[in-house]
């Protein structure tokens, strides 16, 4: 048997905290960081507003080794993160920001600005807002309004109307970014490094629950083989909902979030290979210039708190029909690489996803790599997403278009994939067939819109009704056509 440990270690309140799950009946390995913190006497600032990562009242910040000899500060929704996810990290809560000396309280600059700019009214969302601002403070100096908004998209406030919060962010982040955390960084760094040197897998075997957290790919493959019925999680932003919303106790979990070998992005002239454990935020940063069509989608993917932990592997392997990245990845003939003991295979993403939340993964395989073919120079690729609220919302309809036209402006090749129109992301084959060989003109597109309108039979649900989905689908084709004409329109 390989050596293993059953506990985790992290820094909280400037001290190393260890939790041994085999000896602890207060906390399960799937206890969320939110519930853990709220069970402590001094950490009731963190709030549960929705238990699904939509409101951000539970936002906390973790400082983790950034792999470049420093610390990275990341905001995340503590309601969606299980305790083992903070192993080897510093957990920072709203109570850690101000410094108390006797009766004197020295507020952190972000707190100071929130007070000065009237950023709080009822105060319930405020600790989460403050933590998002703290992460912004630690990562950006003089951020643009776009960056400020992006860092606050995951925080709902029902009282203020946000303007004072944006003002607070602008003021605080105009400072030099230093604070009392900066002074301790070296010590924190070396403590975290000490914890992380031990690559022994965490294996918790409790009567009700098994939780496995390997640190190397070899261990991941071993544990997957030994526990083929385990549920693989990474950022756990989707899986956690089974527990927080549906109240299902997850019996067996294999957590791959600490396997650094799965976090990589490499590219050559024709391909981009993304490790399954790469966070959406890292991928977004990479794609902004190199694959804008993917960046378009990632910018409206969840919130920063979600993107900081959610992974591309998770978005694909969950095989949700509204997985935001799927239409584009399918259009780009993306392949996935699966690893198993002593073997590996590559297959097309379209063969990997077999149905509503179903994939063809074998019981001993793990999804390791997503290989995206780069678009060719003479192709135009665009992605779209329509949701009720533009940000932090699940799409009513999403789409990706890939066009190659010949020198006579006829359609030489067209691929159209929609999400939200059927049980899985699907090609609009009738529309594609119609368009192929036709002149890429407005007249053709208008005819194609009629075909597209009738091509799918979408459902009516809480997000949109059938009729609206049909209109959205056909309109997106027009939108794509306009963009291929490079008309200079404003974007909303």
């Amino acid at each position: 048997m390989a050596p293993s440990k059953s506990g985790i270690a992290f820094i909280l309140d400037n001290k190393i905290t260890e939790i041994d799950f085999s000896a602890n009946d207060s906390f399960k390995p799937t206890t969320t960081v939110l519930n853990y913190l709220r069970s402590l006497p001094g950490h009731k600032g963190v709030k549960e507003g929705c238990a699904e990562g939509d409101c951000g009242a539970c936002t906390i910040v973790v400082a983790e080794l950034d792999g470049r000899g420093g610390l990275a500060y990341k905001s995340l929704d503590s309601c969606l993160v299980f305790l083992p996810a903070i192993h080897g990290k510093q957990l920072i809560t709203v109570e850690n920001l101000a410094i108390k000396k006797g009766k004197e309280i020295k507020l952190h600059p972000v707190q100071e600005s929130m007070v000065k700019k009237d950023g709080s009214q009822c105060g319930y969302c405020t600790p989460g807002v403050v933590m998002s601002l703290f992460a912004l403070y630690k990562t950006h100096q003089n951020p643009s309004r776009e960056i400020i908004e992006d860092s606050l998209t995951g925080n709902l406030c029902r009282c203020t109307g946000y303007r004072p919060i944006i003002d607070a962010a602008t003021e605080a982040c105009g400072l030099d970014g230093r604070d009392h955390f900066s002074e301790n960084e070296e010590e924190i760094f070396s403590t975290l490094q000490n914890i992380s040197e031990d690559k022994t897998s965490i294996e918790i075997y409790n009567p009700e629950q098994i939780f496995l957290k390997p640190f190397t790919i070899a261990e991941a493959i071993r544990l997957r083989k030994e526990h083929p019925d385990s549920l693989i999680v990474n950022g756990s932003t989707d899986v956690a909902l089974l527990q927080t919303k549906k109240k299902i106790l997850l019996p067996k979990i294999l957590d791959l979030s600490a396997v650094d070998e799965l976090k990589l992005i490499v590219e050559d002239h024709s391909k981009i290979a993304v490790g399954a454990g790469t966070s959406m935020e890292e991928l977004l940063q990479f794609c902004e210039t190199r694959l804008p069509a993917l960046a378009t989608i990632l910018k409206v993917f969840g919130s920063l708190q979600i993107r900081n932990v959610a992974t591309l592997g998770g978005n694909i392997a969950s095989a949700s029909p509204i997985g935001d990245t799927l239409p584009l990845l399918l259009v780009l003939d993306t392949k996935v690489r699966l690893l198993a003991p002593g073997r590996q295979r590559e297959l097309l993403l379209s063969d990997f996803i077999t149905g509503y939340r179903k994939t063809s993964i074998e019981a001993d395989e793990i999804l390791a790599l997503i290989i995206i073919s780069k678009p060719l120079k003479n192709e135009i690729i665009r992605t779209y997403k329509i949701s009720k609220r533009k940000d932090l919302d699940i799409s009513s309809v999403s789409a990706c278009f890939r066009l190659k036209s010949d020198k006579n402006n006829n359609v030489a090749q067209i691929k159209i994939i929609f999400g939200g129109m059927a049980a899985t992301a699907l090609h609009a084959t009738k529309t594609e067939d119609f368009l192929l060989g036709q002149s890429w003109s407005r007249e053709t597109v208008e005819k194609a819109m009629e075909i597209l309108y009738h091509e799918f039979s979408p459902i009516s649900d809480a997000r949109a009704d059938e009729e609206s989905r049909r209109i959205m689908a056909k309109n997106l084709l027009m939108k794509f056509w306009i963009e291929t004409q490079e008309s200079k329109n404003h974007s909303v």
Partner: protein
Amino acid sequence: MVKSETNPNISLQHESAISHVTGQSAYINDMPVNDQMLVGKVVYSKFAHAAIKSFNLDKARNFPGVRAVLSVHNIPGANQMGPVIHDEPCLADKVVNFAGQAIFLIAAIDEETARHAENLIETEFEPLEPILDIETAILKNSKIGDEKRIETGDVDKNLQSSMFQISGTLRTGAQEHWYLETQSCVCIPGEGSEMMVYSSTQHPSETQAIVAEVLDIPRNEVTVEVKRMGGAFGGKETQGNHVAAWAALLADATNCPVKIHLFRDDDQIMTGKRHRFISHYRAGFDADGKILALDVELNADAGAATDLSLAILERALFHIDNAYFVPNLRVTGQAWKTNLPSNTAFRGFGGPQGIAVIETVIDRIARQLKLDPARLRQLNFYQTRQNNITHYGEEVENNRLPMIFDKIISNSGYFRLREEVEAFNQKNEFYKKGLALTPVKFGISFTTSFLNQAGALINIFRDGSVVVNHGGTEMGQGLHTKILEIASKELGISHNQIKVTATNTSKVPNTSATAASSGSDLNGMAVKTGIEKIKNRLLTLAAELLSENHGGENSSPENISFKDNLVFDSKNPDRTISFRDLISNAYFRQISLSATGFYKTPDIHFDKIKGRGRPFHYFAFGMSVSEVLVDTLTGYHKILKTFIVHDAGDSLSEKIDIGQIEGGFIQGVGWCTSEDIKWNEKGQLLNHSPDTYKIPGVRDIPLEFHVELLKDAPNHSTIRGSKAVGEPPFMHGFSVWLAIKDAISSIGNNRFEPDFQIPATNEVILKSIENIRKKIKS
């Protein structure tokens, strides 16, 4: 010489701001828990309408860790928690009338145990036909209350004789409050029948009454305390009572402290929302666009019980005129009973639903006559010397509409913006801009006149520190901050010498809800009268003390002033004594340093039968201009600019008031755009979490956002010349709503009236555009 210690232009920050940002501010769910505290769980109906044939609680009761499982048969007192009309059972009796209705209560050692116990309850239902919309309720004549009617002039004659007539129907949707803190309560049983209730309620006195009723004990056995709420917006005016009643029943049954903190989805499923309305209107107008006659029929979806529906409907009737003089006006209203959670108070309280109708009428007239809608609004505004009597007979006094209109037209550069929008729309096919100016005139006072009363308790301690307690509750709106400001100014002492403590029914009894925007108007006055009582007791002593050690004339009690922590003789300002020393002296002279304050709003009355009277103490006014950009292919919109000019009288706190205006506006925008509520065919709520229910986020606010308080327009006979500011700004959201409509309308060059409703989600926008495009083709 006495100098002012604070710059009057810098207003006080929220009194809890530092606790908020440091995470120290405590809410019900943050209260320290001892190991006896039990978790309360509410078991509710999945059926919108069903008979309860039988149930068996034995297995649940016998499950280890379960301390009580209660049904309707285990309520010691009345099975009732309706605030006005007693038609709302505390626990379902034989029948359930909406999905989300409480049937059983469980107290257990933890949540998991309570959940297990819930699964062990066996209940047999016989589903019955539910009524799930207003149309069906009308067909089945399923009413709540009688028709309400207010009428002035001869509507039928003037409708007929008008040169132009329009008619139509407007649908306005429900809205979930989405307070960040869900409904919560901790009940701690005491000696005998005593019950201590820590509640997140806007109405502690009513919570006290309902708890007393279900437990069958007098109200003096029940103490309700409210430190603060994590948002309320009307959603805790009556709905907080429910959770308190349930927690009290469980605490009583187990003799242990019990906490109920609703899970977000349960909260959204169980509690009432803003009333949906279907409103039919007919209007007659002349060639200038002057409205000559208006006939409106309002239909409100009350849900399964009365709750506050009749008062909400009444406020909709009162606000059907908004800012406009309509010489011949008839408005009728009916609340309809459906199998949905009983709808309830929500910021605006029916006002927005009424105002949306006349704003639609004006918007349509402008389109039909090809007039600028802002000019048309101005033409129809109430005037100052004539045409200033509302349809219910109240004069619009101190009309601020003309000055606000001038101000906002110049602030926003409205007419220049109008030209820019038109030029943009000429050039762009798929992106369209829209512009709208909308006004609000909002009546301030509870329309049930006797509710306009408030109390306060002022205690001064021997060290000169002061506790102020009043009947209002703090839900983030900054009431305690305003009270602190008032007390500080009245007592002439620093803010840090005063503490505004948690609202508590044993300190100030028989209070009204903190609602109808009235919190600071009523409680501020009560605090002032209480302070005046104590100050009056101190005057003679102060004069005596100030005369000591000074030659010349003795100081006279009527010249005593309180300022800057000093008490001084305004005739001889060098004669001073510190406030603290005066208080210390007063104690030894056996002068009472405690007083109650009381206030009732004067001169308000309303005859509900005749539909005439003066229901409002005054009106608050404001206007907004918004410019939006609509992507006609996706239905997305972006608010490019919003300008607001709002009348808060002499603001008690500019920071707090601006916060209310901005927050209210955004909440109004949410109702008008993205906050969409759908039920399935069984009457089950589909949007029961923020996953599918979309309140505005940080990117939904205007790119440019200018808010200004109207200056030099003090109010009369209110605390320090101020005006209420909680609800009126909600209506500024209409400028965004109608700007979107304006953008849609431009697709057909304003030749076609766009289909429109509230909320204008991108679904509604896309379908409306689709229809206009079809009309253009045909």
